[in-house]
């Protein structure tokens, strides 16, 4: 036993000396190479620096051209790409580079702004995120250039681009809402969509379909995981909100209580399907008879056309969003985006020219609508005949015109920098409201107070929220 232990120790020190000797040998070998390594590193640094210069514009290889870099993604980026040839023809000294690479552009943009380097010339932002960036003074003030366009945009969208009377962003596309429905289901159960004028009518129609289909076909999807999406759609339609213009929390308002009452009525009537928005199940229902219709924004049209089965063309239709009461507003907004120019941009003048072409001209907006179905926020573009073209997918209905109706009447919505946090809080807690059958007012009040604590904002008492507009 003892000899074995000894031999182990012996072997161990042996190994150790081999390692140390080897290490010293390696060190000495590398030591002789150190000067060469230093020279090589210096060379690399010089090469790197020189190749970096043209990128930052300090040394342009093609001195005649200014490059405008744009961060955008998805179909929106493709829409901008379609504008590149006509724009570059008009402005031969500018070249447009649309950067679609990289995950999570929002976080990347934040890092670029926070660190002061790396932001491009133009950035796409969700309309809901605009108010996070407009007060930061890190975006170019566009008031002098863009102020004249104010009257050409829907006020509800222009407002989220303005902070303290200064314009920092330009609305790009918007998400007006209507109801996409399956014609064959409505015909089968004898429902005439023209008779659905209010949400109450809508619920009645849903009950009929539910009864006649023996509880097989549901009117619409309202899953407890995405119930807040539908609530936000109703909130914008009804002129409710989360924040008032002073940033106080006004969640427990008569309008919001009415929104919740509608959702509760639908859940209680048993006309809702529990399929969660934008899940695999959700897209599958486009081709089945389990859901009759989808109150949604105009950009859902692309998804429906993509995912609905091949027999679908001509089997779909669109009717206007039901109103809260007869004669009420039959439109809303869900989604949309804006373009901004960070202050870091070295060619903000050319960047503005491109942005103006994309967002504030009929030609630019119509081209993007044709390319990627981006629905323009620029009102003059909506007068273009392209929006009056019948769509065979919807049995020749002029659906694009339908979405634009009353769009200028959609009430504005104050979002503040905390919109993301507030809406995810609603998404988290509203599923409890939906499944626990919590009383509407109790829920809104407790959510308002919880948000007030989290965001350090004061909560307006229900009595102060004023009359319905």
């Amino acid at each position, binding site marked *: 036993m003892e000899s074995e232990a000894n031999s182990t120790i012996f072997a161990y020190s042996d190994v150790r000396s081999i390692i140390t000797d080897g290490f010293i040998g390696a*060190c000495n070998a590398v030591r002789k190479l150190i000067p060469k390594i230093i020279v090589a590193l210096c060379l690399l640094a010089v090469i790197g620096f020189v190749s970096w210069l043209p990128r930052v514009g300090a040394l342009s290889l093609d001195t005649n051209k200014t490059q405008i870099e744009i961060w955008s993604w998805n179909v929106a980026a493709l829409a901008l790409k379609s504008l590149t040839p006509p724009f570059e023809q008009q402005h031969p000294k500018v070249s447009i580079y649309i950067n679609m690479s990289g995950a999570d552009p929002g976080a990347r943009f934040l890092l670029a702004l926070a660190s002061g380097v790396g932001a491009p010339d133009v950035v796409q932002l969700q309309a809901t995120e605009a108010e*996070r960036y407009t007060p930061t003074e890190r975006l170019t003030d566009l008031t002098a250039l863009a102020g004249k366009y104010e009257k050409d945009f829907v006020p509800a969208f222009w407002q989220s681009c303005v902070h303290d009377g200064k314009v920092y962003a330009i609305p790009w596309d918007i998400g007006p809402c209507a109801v996409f429905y399956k014609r064959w289901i409505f015909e089968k159960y004898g429902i005439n969509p023209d008779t659905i004028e209010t949400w109450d009518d809508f619920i009645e129609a849903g009950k009929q379909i539910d009864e006649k289909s023996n509880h097989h076909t549901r009117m619409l999807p309202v899953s407890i995981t995405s119930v807040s999406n539908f609530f936000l759609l109703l909130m914008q339609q009804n002129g409710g909100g989360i924040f008032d213009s002073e940033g106080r929390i006004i969640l427990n308002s008569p309008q919001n209580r009415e929104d919740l009452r509608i959702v509760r009525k639908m859940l209680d009537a048993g006309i809702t399907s*529990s*399929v969660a928005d934008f899940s695999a199940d959700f897209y599958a229902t486009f081709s089945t008879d389990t859901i009759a219709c989808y109150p949604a924004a105009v950009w859902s049209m692309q998804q429906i056309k993509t995912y609905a089965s091949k027999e679908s063309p001509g089997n779909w239709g669109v009717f206007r969003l039901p109103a809260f009461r007869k004669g009420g507003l039959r439109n809303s907004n869900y989604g949309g985006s804006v373009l901004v120019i960070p202050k870091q941009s070295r060619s903000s003048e050319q960047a503005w020219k491109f942005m103006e072409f994309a967002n504030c001209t009929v030609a630019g907006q119509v081209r993007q609508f044709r390319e990627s179905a981006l629905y323009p926020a620029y009102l003059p573009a909506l007068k273009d005949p392209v929006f009056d073209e019948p769509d065979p997918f919807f049995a020749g209905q002029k659906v694009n015109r339908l979405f634009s109706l009353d769009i200028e009447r959609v009430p504005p919505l104050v979002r503040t920098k905390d919109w993301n946090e507030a809406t995810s809080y609603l998404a988290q807690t509203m599923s409890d409201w939906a499944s626990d059958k919590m009383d509407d007012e109790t829920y809104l009040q407790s959510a308002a107070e919880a948000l007030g604590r989290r965001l350090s904002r004061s909560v307006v008492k229900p009595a102060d929220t004023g009359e319905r507009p």
Partner: protein
Amino acid sequence: MTSSTSRGSLGAAIWRNRWFYIFISPFFILFALFGLYPLLYSLYMSTIDWDGLMPPHDVGFNNFRTLFQDTVFYTSIKNTLLIGIYHMPVMMFLGFTMALLLNQQWLKLRGFWRAAVFVPCITPMVVIAIVFTLLFGGEYGLVNYLIRTLSGGYLKGLPWLDSASFSKITISILLIWRWSGYNMLIMLAGMQGIPQEMYEAATIDGANRWQQLRRLTIPMMRPTFVFCMITSLIGTVYLFEEPFVLTNGGPGTSSTNFGLFLFNNSFRYFRFGYASAAAYSVAVVVLILTLIIYRGGRSATD
């Protein structure tokens, strides 16, 4: 080395060994830059209110005070613990059983089986997420389809992802599927580290297979178990990808775990100070838990 330990000779010793220090310096430089500096900076951040864009302002311990009143924070801790309780025992058991099986001489195609069990943890999470959402979809998911078909339409299937009571279980199933192979591999290595002579001696002493497993394999594997438990514990606390892609923390906050809570607060709400405070609070707890497991494992081995 008979020299005194005065300052001068320490300096001289360092100078004499300068090449060693230079050659080990890259690690320390990189660690200081990418490990230590962020660590200290987030400690500082936990005392400020900063959204990355507006000028930060000092709030002292306010972040911590808000944190300890934040119900979502407590829910996220509770969910983390529950997910850990749901998946860790099953995962450990499966890992051990599979390691035991794959260590048998009589098993054919051992290399193939080992690779097959290990594949889930090298598969990109996005792919797994798509497959799992298709499997566990409420109305058109394969699992519910099987439940319905096998029960002859008697059972309706379960709301795997759409109900607050099932979302954590679904995530745990994914975790078990994904990480059992990894634990199997470590346990297999631990098992093969047990000298064959000990089994021979046990056989001579008349121990049967079961006795060998209970009295020899399991006690000898204790350090491996401790290692697996510590890595799984840390993995559970900082779990992020799985709930992020599968349920995104929903429905409600039913599957929002601590990793997701951190992500939401820092990169969705841009409240870096608050997120740092949360990260530091939990890091302290994890450190204590790790020490307990480590000590427990060591004293049991000694």
